[in-house]
């Protein structure tokens, strides 16, 4: 079973860059993209065109998004019994203390700032792959019993 990652990111340049970085890090990863918060929730709830969407093993969430921003998405995920156990990593350009505090308050699993340098960014994606998708033990059965 491939590793499924949902990337919630509105900038096509960043999407592509992340795809490239994951390709370098782990070819087995299947990266799905939602361009805003609304689409991310549709994907996670398998609504509309996303009826057949897989349940992701990891969510990479940008904070500043059109329509519904990352903070709202995070709040919805962590309030949803079916979704709350999916590790949600904030990946954003914001370094504002307020955003960091708010994200952890909303139960983000981790907060990462996008580095400016390409090589550093690639290193970060490698770390994400290594920690969240390789070393961390994630639940296989997510249905609450």
């Amino acid at each position, binding site marked *: 079973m491939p590793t499924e990652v949902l990337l919630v990111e509105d900038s096509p*340049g960043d999407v592509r860059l992340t795809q490239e970085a994951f390709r370098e890090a782990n070819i087995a990863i299947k990266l799905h993209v939602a361009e805003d918060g609304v689409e991310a929730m549709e994907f996670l709830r398998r609504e509309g065109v996303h009826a057949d969407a897989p349940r992701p093993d990891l969510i990479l969430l940008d904070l500043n998004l059109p329509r519904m921003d990352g903070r709202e998405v995070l709040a919805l995920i962590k309030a949803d019994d079916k979704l709350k156990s999916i590790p949600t990593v904030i990946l954003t*350009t914001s370094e504002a203390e307020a955003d960091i505090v708010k994200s952890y308050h909303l139960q983000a699993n981790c907060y990462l700032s996008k580095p*400016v340098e390409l090589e550093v960014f690639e290193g970060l994606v490698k770390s994400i792959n290594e920690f969240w998708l390789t070393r961390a033990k994630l639940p296989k059965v997510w249905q609450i019993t």
Partner: protein
Amino acid sequence: MQNSISHDSDARYRGLLEAAPDAMVVVNGTGEIVLLNLQAESRLGYRRDELVGQKITTIIPEGFAERLLADGTRSAATALAQQIGTGIELSALRKDGSAFPIEIMLSPLESDDGILVTAAIRDITVRKAAEQHLVQTEARYRGLLEAAPDAMVVVDEGGEIVLVNAQAEKQFRYRRDELLGKTITSIIPQGFAERLAADAQRSAEDAMAQQIGTGIELTACRKDGSEFPIEIMLSPLRNDEEVLVTAAIRDISARKLAEVQLQLKIDELSRSNEELAHFADIASHDLQEPLRMVSSYTQLLARRYKGKLDSDADEFIEFAVDGASRMQRLIQDLLIYSRVGTKGKELLDTSSERAFQLAVGNLGGVIADSGALVTNDPLPDVCADEIQLIQLFQNLVANAIKYQKPGVPTVHVSAARGPENKWMFSVKDNGLGIEPHYFERIFGMFQRLHKREEFSGTGIGLAICKKIVERHGSTISVASQVGEGSTFSFGLAASTQT
């Protein structure tokens, strides 16, 4: 005829005259003196026989005749009722020719020879002198009042205006006579009474000592109803009968306006400063985003296609990568620079020794690579933002190591007591040195003295140092000799503990 009064009545009347406290002179219908008392002799300096038979004008040259005439039109009873205290003031002449002020009261006296007039003459020299003194004092006070640069208003205990100066007329746009008798509340509607009550609690000395500059601010009202801000100072003025209050009233419209304008300017300035700081933050953050794309993708291009296109393409890509990464550093430095002001922490007691050691620790790699010898004297506790102090040392030491000539670079940091409770720090190196005409320029933004190939960097390091030192209320300067090395000096306030 002077002796035509009957003997009996003459004797009785003479007795009465002599008993009177005033000088008494009796004059007949033609204005001749027929009788006088001892008081009259001594006051006027004549012997009795010298005056009897003389015209009254000898001793009272003017006014007596007119007085007589006036009194003649009244009934005797009315004339008698007239009190001497309300008598008319004239001038009397002594035998030696000297004059003195008198007040006289006349009363008719029926006799066999027709109507005689008894004149009671009171010497009022002393009273006149006192009055004169009072007038002079008042004139002096009035002079002072008029000379005052402020509007002056004297108020009695009932709050009625009793005296004003020309400034007051001008300021309140009333004529003097319109102001006199008005209550103070018609020109200062509120606060004056309260002020007065407050002042009454203090001694006159305290009140006097109060400077107008520290006076209370009230609102005054002109004749046309327009209002203007004033500052008033009150001082009590005691005389025998009552306490008057002198109020010095200064129109502070201009000052108020200046204050308002100053505040507007301050607000405007802090707003534009805030906007600027905000702008630098936003600009550097938002500029970084597209730049990150340019930089990342040119790097990807370089990595994947280097050697696969022609040599021109490789060179172009290299320039694009270099330009993007330099711009990134500039933006990051700009952000650091702007945050010295906007993200600075409170200045607290800080060990500069510790800050220096942390800076040296951060520069571990650079120091090791260059083989530099970085030393220091014991460094004092100062009042500083520790993060910024570390940054300051770090930039200065890194600079010292960077601009080196062949040989072992040495950097020495020391501190000595300076003026105004400050420590003067020195960062001394044995490097290239700087030509004097660059001393100012090196602290500017993005100023570089060397070609990019010789030394990398954006040229903002010393500008950041300058901004940090200035934020700490001090200045930074450099002394240098080309080929010998440079010494950067800056002050920091001593710790409050020492």
